[in-house]
Structures are given as C-alpha cells and as structure tokens.
C-alpha cells in the first residue's frame, strides 16, 4: 500500500514541478508516522531546523511595531503582509544593541550584536562567532552540510555567518550553483529503492584522511593565530570526510523529500535590481525548503539584501540605502515613500521564505513548524542608523520547543536576550551570553515552551 502511494505521489510531483524549484506540500501518509505525528515510524524524531533571514536597512519607525503585546497582536502597515503567518510569527520590539563606548559601526554593529552578542570595534571585526555556528555544531553534524548560506544578491560576501573576522562562511549567490551543490551527482535520494555504496567515495575518504593525518606536523611550530587558521582548515576537511561517510550509508527515507528539478536561471550583472533579487530569492527559498526536507542540512542563513541595501529599481539612479538617507520625508505620509517601496518588497520576500517552508508538509504540520527562523536587520531606522528597537522576528515553532505568535516588547533590553533564548530553545547548554552591557542570562520566557 505504501509503495503504491509513494509512486503516485512522486509521479504527481514530477508533473507539478515542471522543471522549477517549487516546494509542493504533500500530506505524509499516516502509516509513515508514529501515532502522534511527531516522529517518523522509524522512531527518529522529526529534526528541528534553525535558520536566519537577513535584510539591510531596517524598517520605518511607527510602521511595524504592534500596539498590542502578546498573542493576537495587531499588524501595522509594514508587517501586514505577514498576516497569514501571525500565529506562527513572533515580533520583537524594543530590544537594542549597546556599544559600551565602542563606535556604532553603521550597518554592522546591529547585526553583529544580534548574532555575536558583542559590538564590533570596526567594520571588519567579528569579536565572537555568530551563534548560528554554535547551533550548526550542535544540531548540524549529522547532515551532509553543517549549514548552508545563501545571498539573493548573488554576492558570496553577503553572509553573516562567521566564525571569526577571517572565517566567513561564503554565501551561495547562484540558484543554479546551489541546486548543483545540493541535488547534483553527490545527492543520495533518501527515498530511492536501491542503494549501493560507491567505491570511489571510499577512496576519496582515504584521500582526505591522509590530509588530516598530517595535522600535527602542519600545526607544529606555528604561532597561535596561524594555528587557529590551520585548525579551521582541518575542521573543514573533516566535515567533508563526514559528508562522504554519510554518502556511504543508506539514508533513512524521508517522505517530505522530493528532489526538485533544475531551476531555470540566468546569470546577470544586475544583482541589485529588486525584481531580479526577488526572483533569485524565490528560487533559493524553494530549494532551501527542499534541502531541509531532504535533511541535507538543518541550519541555514539567508541574506535577502546586503547591509547597506543596494537594492534598486531598474532604471533608477539611487539605491534603497541612498534613499533612506537622502529622500525627504513626505510630510503627508510621514515616511520616505521611495525607500519604503523597498521595505515592502523585503517583507514580501520574507513572506516568500515563510511560504516556502510552510508548503512542505512534514509530520503533523509543516517544515515551518519544525523550524526556528530568526529574521532580523542591522538597524531599525536606517535614515539615522538607529540601534534602538532593532527589528527581529521569530517564525516557526522549532518542533514545539517554542511558543509562537506573540509580540514581545523589550523595553530597552539587550538584543542578546533573543540570541540566548534561541540557543537555549535549540538545546545548547548555555545560561548566559553576550559581553559588556549586552551580557545577559535572561531569556525571553514568554516564548519558551
């Protein structure tokens, strides 16, 4: 019975995909699940995923913060588009970055404070690893990729995932490149009937272990900083070894996983044009949802735009970032209409990401329910680079580990409370996080399940 159903389901999907990457929701058959729908029949629980979703240049004051706190909050103009997800989306307002006398590095301090808990001293420094890397180390080691980074702008440098100032996990900027990396020749379909370990993969493993065997010799005699760099190199080699080890095991079947078709995508030099960024992002979001459904990774970081948002309309001389500084405030509207056009497009992009995750049915819910997605910008009001009330959202329920659908007003507390909460919810054994005024041991209790 289940075999027949699977063939039908996959046949239908192939027809529906039509060569593009779209997440299509297919109900998981009950016989595949345990009785309460939280785990696969094999007994393995549905994995929890963690992601970040970043955009540059914030939101407008007075246009996104709900008046009502808690559940059932109101949705002001700039977040109204997210209304379909209100019950699975928490809004955080009133949380700020504190610099303790360090310069407020424009378009950088905010995001680094949210992600590392420490204000950077300058534009290039990363004072502590971004916490997605801790999460990846904790929940990402059993999957093919410890984490995956994407930039809809096409620029590999647009990645916030950093282990240090010089170890920046590069973002994949091409939907096609991303597709090939995930679903190219090295992809092992978890639902394939046959599985034969590839002897060439075993040989590749031995090549890599010969490289790692030299670790002690290579590290010997190096200064402390160079030792850390070389150790990072060996960590990267070991991760590829682990990927290969997984390729030699028959993967557990995953009903939600369907190998998507190759996206039709054309490379362009106009990676800042809003319609192109939006289209790239849509393809990427669909592919990412499939990557998660196929358990290729459990941690992901997506940048919709760069921190100094270079988004622009075709034929326009100015970028979103320039507009935030240069466009006069429309007296009647009370905000900058041209700059706000981009804010609306960005929130549409966020909606696209949420929809992509939600359209993959998994267990008794959707992929989104088993995900914790932290969306944030690097400033609140870009016109003055404000670090007060940095816009942050958490979508999804992390498999029931957090409560969702709340508006939490931070009243000037440190942004690190959110990072600490997320790390704890995902099972990391820490009880305080951040440095200086941003050190905190206070989680956002309201969202802890």
């Amino acid at each position, binding site marked *: 019975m289940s075999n027949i159903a699977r063939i039908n389901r996959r046949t239908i999907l192939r027809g529906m995909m039509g060569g593009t990457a779209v997440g299509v929701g297919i109900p998981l058959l009950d016989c595949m699940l345990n009785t309460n729908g939280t785990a696969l029949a094999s007994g393995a629980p549905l994995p929890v995923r963690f992601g970040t979703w970043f955009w540059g240049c914030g939101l407008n004051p007075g246009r996104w913060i709900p008046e009502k706190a808690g559940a059932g909050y109101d949705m002001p103009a700039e977040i109204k588009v997210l209304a379909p997800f209100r019950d699975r989306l928490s809004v955080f307002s009133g949380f700020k970055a504190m610099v303790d006398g360090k310069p407020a590095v424009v378009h950088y301090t905010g995001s680094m404070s949210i992600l590392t808990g420490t204000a950077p001293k300058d534009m290039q420094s990363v004072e502590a690893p971004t916490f997605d890397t801790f999460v990846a180390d904790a929940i990402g080691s059993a999957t093919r990729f410890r984490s995956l980074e994407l930039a809809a702008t096409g620029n590999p440098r647009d990645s916030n995932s950093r282990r240090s100032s010089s*170890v920046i996990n590069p973002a994949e900027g091409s939907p096609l490149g991303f597709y090939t990396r995930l679903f190219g020749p090295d992809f092992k379909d978890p639902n394939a009937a046959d599985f034969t370990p590839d002897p060439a993969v075993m040989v590749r493993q031995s090549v890599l272990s010969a490289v790692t065997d030299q670790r002690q010799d290579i590290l010997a005699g190096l*200064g402390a900083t160079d030792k850390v*760099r070389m150790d990072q190199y060996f960590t990267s*080699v070991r991760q590829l070894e682990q990927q290969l080890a997984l390729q030699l095991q028959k993967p557990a079947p995953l009903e939600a996983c369907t190998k998507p078709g190759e996206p039709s995508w054309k490379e362009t*030099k106009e990676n800042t044009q809003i319609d192109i960024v939006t289209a790239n992002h849509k393809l990427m979001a669909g592919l990412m949802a499939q990557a998660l459904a196929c358990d290729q990774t459990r941690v992901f970081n997506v940048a919709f735009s760069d921190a100094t948002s270079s988004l622009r309309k*075709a*034929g326009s001389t100015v970028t979103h970032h320039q507009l935030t500084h240069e466009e006069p405030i429309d007296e009647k509207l009370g905000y900058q209409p041209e700059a706000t056009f981009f804010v609306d497009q960005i929130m549409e992009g966020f909606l696209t990401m949420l929809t992509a995750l939600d359209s993959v049915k998994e267990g008794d819910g959707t992929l989104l329910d088993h995900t914790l997605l932290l969306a944030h910008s690097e400033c609140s009001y870009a016109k*003055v680079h404000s670090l007060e009330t940095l816009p942050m959202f958490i979508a999804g329920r992390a498999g029931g580990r957090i409560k969702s659908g709340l508006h939490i007003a931070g009243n000037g507390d440190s942004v690190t409370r959110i990072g600490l909460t997320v790390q704890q919810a995902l099972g990391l054994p820490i009880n305080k996080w951040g440095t200086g005024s941003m050190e905190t041991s206070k989680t956002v209790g309201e969202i802890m399940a």
Partner: protein
Amino acid sequence: MRLLGFSAIVALAVSIVGVVGCGKSDEPQSSGGPIVVRRLTQEQYQTIIADIFGADIKIGGRFEPDLRKSGLLAVGASEVSVTPAGFEQYDSMARGAAAQIVDERHRDMLIGCKPASPKAPDEACAKSFYSTVGRLLYRRPLTGEELKAQLAIANAAATKLGNFYTGLAMGLTGMVEAPQFLFRREVAEADPDHAGQQRLNAFSKATRLSFFLWNTTPDDELLTAAESGDLNSSRGTAKQVDRMMASPRLTAGARAFFNDMMAFDAFADLSKDTVIYPKFTNAVIADAQEQTLRTITDHLLAAKGDYRDLFTTRKTFMTPLLGTIYRVPVETKEGWEAHEFAADDPRAGLLTQISFLSLHSTPGRSSPTIRGKALREVLLCQKVPDPPGNVNFNLVQDTKNPQFRTARARLGAHATQATCVGCHRLIDPMGLGLEQFDSLGEYRAAENGAPIDASGELDGVKFTDAASLGKALHDNPATPSCLVNRLYAYAAGRPAGKGEAEWIKYLDTSFAANGYRLPDLMRRIVTSDAFYRITAPETATLSVNTAATLKESAQ
C-alpha cells in the same frame, strides 16, 4: 612534458640586467618581520595549475572570497583560512583538475612514464610523477613521509578501482587540496652571516621571490638554486633576480600587484543600472581593467617610466568597445591599439580611465565622495574615517531639487553641517574633480542642465579639472610613498612593522633617487637582506597615515 617546458621557456629569457641592489652597504638595519602563512589567491591557484600542467586544464568551481586587509588582498591572505564550503570547492576543483591531467588526452604528455599495466598500481611510475609535480606544488621536494603517504593512496586506490590512472589522480587530488599547496607557509632558519638573527630558508625565499615577481610557484631553476644553496648568497640571489626580472613573466607579477592595489577584485561584484548605462557590459568591465593594467605595465615596465606619470599620461590603449565610451575612433577591428589623448582632452592619467571612474561610483550615478575616498585610500594609502552613525541628510541630496542640480551643490549644502565637514573636506574636493565623468566613466559637461565645475584642491594644491587633479596627485609626496608601502606589504604578506621604519624610509629615498622606476624598486626589495629577515611572531604594525593624523592635518 609541459612542466619542463615551463622552465625551459623561462631559461631562454635569461639576460643580464644592471644590478641596482648589489651594494648593500647603505641598507639600513631592519628588524624584519614575522613569518607569514598565506592562502593562495584564486589567480595564483589558477596560474600554478596552468604553469605545471598546461593552460587547457580547466578549473571548475568557485573560490572563497579573498579578504582585503591594510588595503591589500595579499595581506588578507595571511589571515584567511578555509571554511567547510570553501574546502568543498577546493576538493571539487582538485578532483576535476586531476581527472583531466590523467585522462587519455593528457596522460602521456603530463605523467612522463607509463605503468606496466593500466589496470594495476605501478609504484615506480607514481613515485616519479609525485616527486616531480610535488616539488612544484609544495615549492620544495616532498619529504620521505609525504611521498610514502602519496604512494599508499595511489596504490590502494588503483587496486580498489582497478585503474592505475584513477589511483594516480586520487593521490594528486590530495596534493592539490593539501595545506602544503594551498598555504604558503614560510620557514625561518638561523642566519649564519648575522649571529643571533633569523632569515627565511632558501625554499621560503624562492617562494617569496617567485610570487612577488611572477605571481606563481617557483620554477625548476629557482628551486634548484634553493636546493644547491646558491640562493643563500647575494650573488646567487642576484643571478636569479636578473633572470626573473628579464622574463616576460615579470609583467604578470606586476599586473597581479596592481590588480590587488587598485582593488579590481571588486569588479566581480560591481553592478550598474543597464537602463541608465546600456553600454555597461561584462565585456566593458574586462576591457576597462585590461586597459588600465596595460597602461601601467607598458609605462612602468616596457618604457621604464616614472610611477607618478601614470596620473598624467595621455597614453593608453583602446579596443573598439572602449572607443564607444571614450568616444574616440579605434581602427583595429579586434584587440588593442595604442591611443594618445590630445593635450586639451579632459582625460589624462589613470583617474580618468573607466576602471577607476566606474568602480568607485554607485550603480546609478557618479559619487564624488566614493571617488574621493578611493583616491585617498587606494592611491595615497590614507584611511578615511567611517561616517558617524547619526548623519542627518535632510537638507540635501534630493536630485530633483531645482536649487541643487549638481553633485557639488548637493554636497556643498551637506558639508555645511559641522559633523560632516571634517571628513567631506578630505574626500569631496578631489572627487568633484572627476564629476565630468558619469558612473560608467563617460564624459559629460553638465548635470541636470547645469554646467559641472570640476575645480578643487588636493592637500592645498588647487586644480581646475580632472587633468590638473592628476597633476596634483603626481606631485603629492604621499603618492610614491604609498606605492612603496603597498609594494612592500604585498611582497611580505604583511604591512611593514615598526622595526622596519628606517628600511621603508630608505626605500622611499632610493625610489625617488632612481626616478620613481618600479623595476628598480622591486629589485631593491628582493636583493636586500631586510626582505628576508625574520623576527619573532606578532610585532606591532607601523601605521603610515592613520585616520587621526589625517584629520589633524586637515584642520
């Protein structure tokens, strides 16, 4: 065999050139600096594979972004590591290259021996191959342990997969993704000529020389000079330097340096609005960079010209495509031809070339601020402070405002604010000198119908337009000293340290004394002792023009 051909070509180019750096007696004491461990850049990786195995070996894959530190990727290379995503790419590139090297089309030419059976391991053949290419890849002979490990992989793989060549490729893959290849790790040794001091060992010295002068791995002859100990003597070094500087490969080395100094890597991420600038294409980007690099190497190497004249020269090179943007007739149908702008043309020097103008602009319009900042940071080695966080742009920057039709008018209004004026005074005046060129670099006399005034001043020297701005830059003492600092940092993989201040001053003086000729400066560096002197790690760096001193001098 290709890898022998490479050194043979170079050997032909040997010639004797006047030795500037021979008399070391006037060289001041220098502390030297720490050893550095540099990750190969994308260009170096590609060049090395092409040099050893031939240019038809395709390298598919994306490299991790390089890191720019102290104005140079060459310095950032001493700080970067390899991320998991980056290593995945190295692995895929190494496998791809190795598979091509052993394929039927290449194996006879590149491997240099044939196995007894193509279906079984052949240790003798594998050993000869790995020893030969390993020496070029690792920039020193393989150790006994390394060779043993390589052979173990090749044998096991050939047995398991029933194919000698696949086995050989697997071992080669391991070498091309090994830290010994991907990272240039320097090794110090006691200096027998200076008791108590340390210097680079001969292989590290060969590697520095080769990457600095040729931007690639040392060739057979240079490694042989390292092996024999010749490179430890001034005479032996001078002989190799003569050979290398006479080689056409010196051009590749100089191009790599200027490519880095001019931050041309940023072109990879440059975006322009093609509705406003329909002429902006990938082909234009490529030609614009090539034009500048050709102008530089022709002037500095072929004509042995004064470095400062790069900012005033009217000589350059054109393609038909560039001709459409510069609006000059180009006779050649394809390729390049020499071009000289007329004495009254608004274009003169590198600042007025498309590469500089378009790289330092926003996607939709020119930016005097960005261009002025680039001029300060790239060409004068000065650090412009970051803007304050709470800038109020309310007053200005509405391009539709009939009162402020040009960028000068808009910035002028902006710069009346006390918090802004300090920095903008440092960067806008020179940027405004280039306002007669739009975001793509095309000439215009007016903006929004108002004529563009391109006058201004650079560090107290007044100019009236882009050409006289070039002259002011030519005469600015920071211009040649910036080149000296960048060139040394590029060669050493780190900025000059405090203990090297006298040595840098000495280089400044000798650069001036030799008429600001780049080859003489390069030779002075590579034939010195100071360049190879090694201290204990982690010394403080010398900051040439800090933000603080810059601000003070402007007030």
